[in-house]
């Protein structure tokens, strides 16, 4: 770490004095992180299967269940020691096994950031075409150019580390809440009749399956907060200061904003507000929608790049690299995908969502089982940062077999219940979702192996 880097640019634990965000500060940052245009795509997916009332209920219930899992998994450890999601998982995965979580965090956040950047580029393209500024044949280049500009802007702001994130979030918070509320009002009041009669386009014919799929989409969408949340709640002084901000600031905005996408796809067959607001109110409304897309996606991308950079700090080769260079590891892949394969990535969002459920449901279950039940909320902060043979979290060769086998068991459970590519399912998916049984199986496997093998071997620092 260079002398000019501050504590919030390191992956090191924060001291009590540095964990100084109050509930409102944390609430604003988490809300700005959560409120992005992925909500419209999530709402669009739910709207394929359910009407407005059922879609709202299923999506909101699923989101809050997913947020509960993430909160229980990360918040207690992150706020106790001021560490991020990756460091909080070391006691479970081992002093080498944590690389699994680094990879998943990296892949997940890069994926979400690609989606946001491409959505942003598409919205600019859409609006400029509507206004007659560009022609359709130049749209692809506008998308790419805008995306690169946005990446550069994110880079410049985050040169200030977490401080830059918090300052920008204060401004974006009111903008996102205000325009988000207005858009919902415009859509619901002007299209109330159409919404009441609207039928989902891809309903399966089995209402229970459709309903459970709405819940599943909500759960997996919020499980994707696992990589993000630690980097921000670690600034809270204790778990109590992060509980409501996490559940209400990070959990609730997603289904509330997703209702806009759900209602838009049902009533107008398009979820991008910069497209449907032009239909409803002309170019002025389109400009307002675009401003919203910019504000919402910008805040979330900032948080994502910041969380990725903090997570990458745990990689020994990157532990001392300059902050500005570290951020390039998080931004360059986003820029590359947005430049070369934007449509391929954008059109496979459903598969990406399922990938999140496959991996993050087991991770959450493993952490909850280990920290809250098996360890009774006691870990060694020294062993989190000091590894090697003979240390508490070295296990066997740096890997904890309980965590690895629990991940594998969870992976196959999810695949058995729901095919992430085709969405073909097996019982009891249509009663229980895929993520919840996956979490239960992973948690049980972890507990059994820990009790039968790890603890008797004197590994893991269990008391």
């Amino acid at each position, binding site marked *: 770490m260079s002398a000019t880097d501050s504590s919030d640019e390191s992956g090191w634990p924060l001291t009590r004095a540095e964990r100084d965000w109050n509930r409102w500060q944390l609430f604003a940052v988490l809300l700005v992180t959560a409120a992005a245009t992925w909500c419209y795509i999530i709402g669009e997916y739910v709207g394929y299967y359910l009407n407005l009332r059922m879609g709202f209920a299923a999506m909101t219930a699923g989101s809050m269940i997913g947020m*509960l899992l993430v909160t229980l998994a990360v918040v207690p450890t992150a706020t106790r020691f001021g560490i991020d999601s990756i460091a909080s998982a070391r006691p479970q995965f081992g002093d080498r096994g944590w690389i699994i979580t680094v990879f998943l965090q990296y892949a997940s956040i890069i994926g979400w950031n690609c989606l946001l950047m491409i959505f942003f580029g598409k919205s600019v393209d859409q609006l400029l075409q509507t206004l007659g500024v560009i022609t359709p044949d130049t749209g692809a280049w506008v998308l790419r150019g805008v995306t690169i500009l946005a990446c550069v802007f994110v880079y410049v702001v985050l040169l200030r580390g977490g401080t830059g994130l918090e300052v920008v979030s204060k401004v974006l918070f009111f903008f996102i809440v205000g325009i988000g509320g207005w858009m919902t009002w415009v859509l619901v009041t002007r299209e109330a009749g159409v919404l009441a009669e609207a039928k989902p386009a891809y309903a399966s014919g089995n209402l229970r399956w459709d309903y459970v799929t709405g819940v599943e989409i909500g759960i997996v969408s919020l499980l994707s907060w696992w990589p993000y949340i630690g980097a921000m709640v670690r600034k809270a002084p204790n778990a109590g200061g992060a509980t409501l901000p996490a559940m209400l600031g990070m959990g609730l905005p997603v289904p509330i904003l997703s209702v806009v996408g759900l209602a838009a796809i049902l009533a107008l067959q398009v979820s991008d507000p910069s497209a449907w607001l032009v239909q409803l109110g002309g170019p002025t409304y389109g400009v307002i929608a675009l401003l919203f897309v910019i504000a919402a996606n910008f805040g979330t991308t900032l948080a994502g790049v910041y969380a990725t950079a903090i997570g990458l700090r745990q990689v020994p080769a990157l532990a001392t690299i300059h902050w500005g260079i570290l951020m390039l590891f998080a931004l360059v892949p986003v820029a590359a995908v947005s430049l070369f394969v934007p449509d391929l990535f954008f059109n496979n969002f459903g598969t990406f969502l399922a990938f999140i459920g496959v991996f993050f449901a087991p991770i959450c279950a493993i952490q909850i089982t280990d920290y809250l039940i098996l360890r009774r909320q006691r870990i060694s*902060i020294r062993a989190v940062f000091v590894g090697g043979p003979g240390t508490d979290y070295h296990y066997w060769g740096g890997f904890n077999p309980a965590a690895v086998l629990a991940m594998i068991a969870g992976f196959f459970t999810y695949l058995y219940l729901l095919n992430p590519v085709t969405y073909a399912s097996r019982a009891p998916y249509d009663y229980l979702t895929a993520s919840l049984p996956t979490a239960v199986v992973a948690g049980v496997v972890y507990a059994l192996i820990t009790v039968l093998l790890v603890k008797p071997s004197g590994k893991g620092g269990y008391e």
Partner: protein
Amino acid sequence: MHDKLPLELEQRIDALERADNQGAGFGPADWVWLLLLGVVGPGLLLLWGWQ
């Protein structure tokens, strides 16, 4: 993993090993909120949506 810890990290760990420098875990009120917002609320919403 760090074979030899940087001095600042060592100081941070030393400080955080003392319980009074650690953040407290979930209190009773937090558990009630988690139960309401993550279990009871979603259950009621699902019943409402299914009607």
